[in-house]
């Protein structure tokens, strides 16, 4: 207790220097704790992202239960092409046996050059997809023709034209949100809502008539989604449509579900691999930063305590002449190192608690794939505190031991 008090008094006399040393140490501790927090936050963000994807994929796959009794009919040029199916086909197909419902739609994807292409919506490099949907509440309720997860504004309303519902994936691309307008192929659309994309949909939803006008497809559709009365009736409906429209593509979506599941799994693997790369980079930089800040903290205390011992050699000699033991002198310098560590640690953790986000982004960089939110939790705090104790102990040990071994006669002769 007396040694602790004595060490405090000595440091208090040198308080300005002690404070300066503590501030440098504080920076090390703040960097140390913030880096740990940053790495933790990155790992948590990656885990959240994978979980979000998994949940979204599961929801999509669940939704595709409807697909088991669904089939799509597209024009000869292939799915999502602008060649078109006559609108008259809607009523004709709807009147066929075993058909429960028909959802007419237009889906035309555009790439960076503004050109359309064949193939599916997902993973084909479309920048956006013009998606005309019937604004019929009954159809939408039954067959989910419009997205339901609106995150801003509202959904499209029955009977309205030249309005659009935008995927949140497209907000940045168009640099537009609810209340703004976008111009697609010479047609101006008012954005009334933004929906949360699942599986990176980049669709611009609008009414069928608006899409027809925009694409010059008056009286035509690009696709019919046909729902059979039951799963067992799907084959009959396919056969009936093919006999009626021999040139059309008819695909039973039930067969696509397994393909979609494979695709989802593949996408998940790609996502996880990408996140793993990001995490590896972050962890590698983080580990180096943590080790470097720890070493600097130990070296800082070591250099300061070593110089303290050198500067106070005569004082050490006096203590020995007064009957203080080697152990007592060693303990005194360890206590001084501990105090410096404690002050630096407290300031460092306070600094980390307010600037962890800034420090970790400066040190670890940012990830395009991860939305990282850094805050100092209990673990980084405790580890930061541990660093100060270890740094104080390791950094002071040799100087304190050296102080205890100084010959009293030599020490007293030192001026």
């Amino acid at each position, binding site marked *: 207790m*007396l040694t602790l008090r004595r060490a405090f*008094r*000595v440091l*208090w*006399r040198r308080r300005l220097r002690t404070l300066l040393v503590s501030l440098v140490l504080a920076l090390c501790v703040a960097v140390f704790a913030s880096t740990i927090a940053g790495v933790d936050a990155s790992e948590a963000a990656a885990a959240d992202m994978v979980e979000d994807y998994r949940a979204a994929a599961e929801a999509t796959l669940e939704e595709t239960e409807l697909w088991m009794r669904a089939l799509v009919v597209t024009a000869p040029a292939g799915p999502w092409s602008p060649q078109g199916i006559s609108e008259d086909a809607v009523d004709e197909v709807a009147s066929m046996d075993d058909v429960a419902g028909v959802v007419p739609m237009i889906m035309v994807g555009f790439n960076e050059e503004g050109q359309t292409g064949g193939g599916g919506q997902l993973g084909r490099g479309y920048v956006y997809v013009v998606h005309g949907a019937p604004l019929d509440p009954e159809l939408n309720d039954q067959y989910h023709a419009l997205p339901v997860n609106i995150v801003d504004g509202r959904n499209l309303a029955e009977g309205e034209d030249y309005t659009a519902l935008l995927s949140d994936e497209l907000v940045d691309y168009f640099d537009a949100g609810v209340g703004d307008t976008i111009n697609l192929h010479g047609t101006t659309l008012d954005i009334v809502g933004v929906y949360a994309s699942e599986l990176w949909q980049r669709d611009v939803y609008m009414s069928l008539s608006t899409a027809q006008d925009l694409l010059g497809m008056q009286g035509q559709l690009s696709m019919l989604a046909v729902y059979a009365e039951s799963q067992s009736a799907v084959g009959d409906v396919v056969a009936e449509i093919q006999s009626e429209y021999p040139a059309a593509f008819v695909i039973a979506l039930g067969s696509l579900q397994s393909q979609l599941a494979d695709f989802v799994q593949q996408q998940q693997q790609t996502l996880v691999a990408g996140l793993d790369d990001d995490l590896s980079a972050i962890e590698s930089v983080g580990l180096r930063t943590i080790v470097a800040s720890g070493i600097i903290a130990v070296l800082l205390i070591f250099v300061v305590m070593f110089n303290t011992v050198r500067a106070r050699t*005569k*004082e050490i*000699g*006096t203590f*020995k*002449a*007064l*009957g*203080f*033991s*080697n152990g*007592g002198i060693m303990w005194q310098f360890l206590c001084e190192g501990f105090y410096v560590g404690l002050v630096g640690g407290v300031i460092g953790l306070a600094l980390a608690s307010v600037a962890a986000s800034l420090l970790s982004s400066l040190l670890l960089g940012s990830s395009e794939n991860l939305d990282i939110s850094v805050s100092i939790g209990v673990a980084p705090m405790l580890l930061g505190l541990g660093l100060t104790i270890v740094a104080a102990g390791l950094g002071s040990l040799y100087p304190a031991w050296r102080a205890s071994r100084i*010959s*009293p*006669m030599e020490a*007293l*002769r030192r001026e």
Partner: protein
Amino acid sequence: MARPMLRAIGLTKTYQADGNRVRALQNVNLEIMRGDFVAIMGPSGSGKTTLLTLLGCLDRPTSGKVLLGTRGLDVTAMPESSLYTIRRKNIGFVFQSFNLIPSFSALENVELPMENLIGSGRRRRKRARVLLRMLEIPHRETHKPPQLSAGEQQRVAIARALANGPAVILADEPTGNLDWETSVGIMNMMRRLASEQKRTIVMVTHDPYMAAFASTKLYLRDGKLSNEDPFYSDPLRFAAQPPTGSQQ
């Protein structure tokens, strides 16, 4: 028959300096009785401080013995861990440059040696106050060394040396940094400590005026101790040709 408080028998100390073997002390024999105030005089480099550090258990002789106390405890044969206790309980040091701890007040400086002997802080403080009063500086107890005059600092240092009631006080040029008047005051105080409190005081100095306060004067030259010295007996003889002395 009274036994000596401090004895040196055949004390020799040699060390290496710049590759040369220097004999700082050569076969020094010494007996100091309880209550003696001994001044050891000699020029710079004569071995005065070396002798004092050996007597004070701060260093070990190359050969010879130091016997402490009337029972003749051979401190040169004791392990380092026991010497702390010997120094703490039996020996008080007074230095030329006072060696006070600058961050501590006068009172705390005096309390310092008592830390390991007196558990109660209140008792330590009480004793420190008594000592400061005895040395006539009770009004300075809260002052730190830089706020004290040189004379006051030396009084605090003497109070600190007396803190644990040591039988022996070793003073290394205690008036070296003091003016004449203050030096005389300090010398009178040390003489009283020897005569009234029966402390054994060994003081090294090169100042014959200060040595005059001591009851016994010894002379050290080239590491050898003697009862008289031609220079100090008749300094004018050496005015034209100073006596030679090895440099330490």
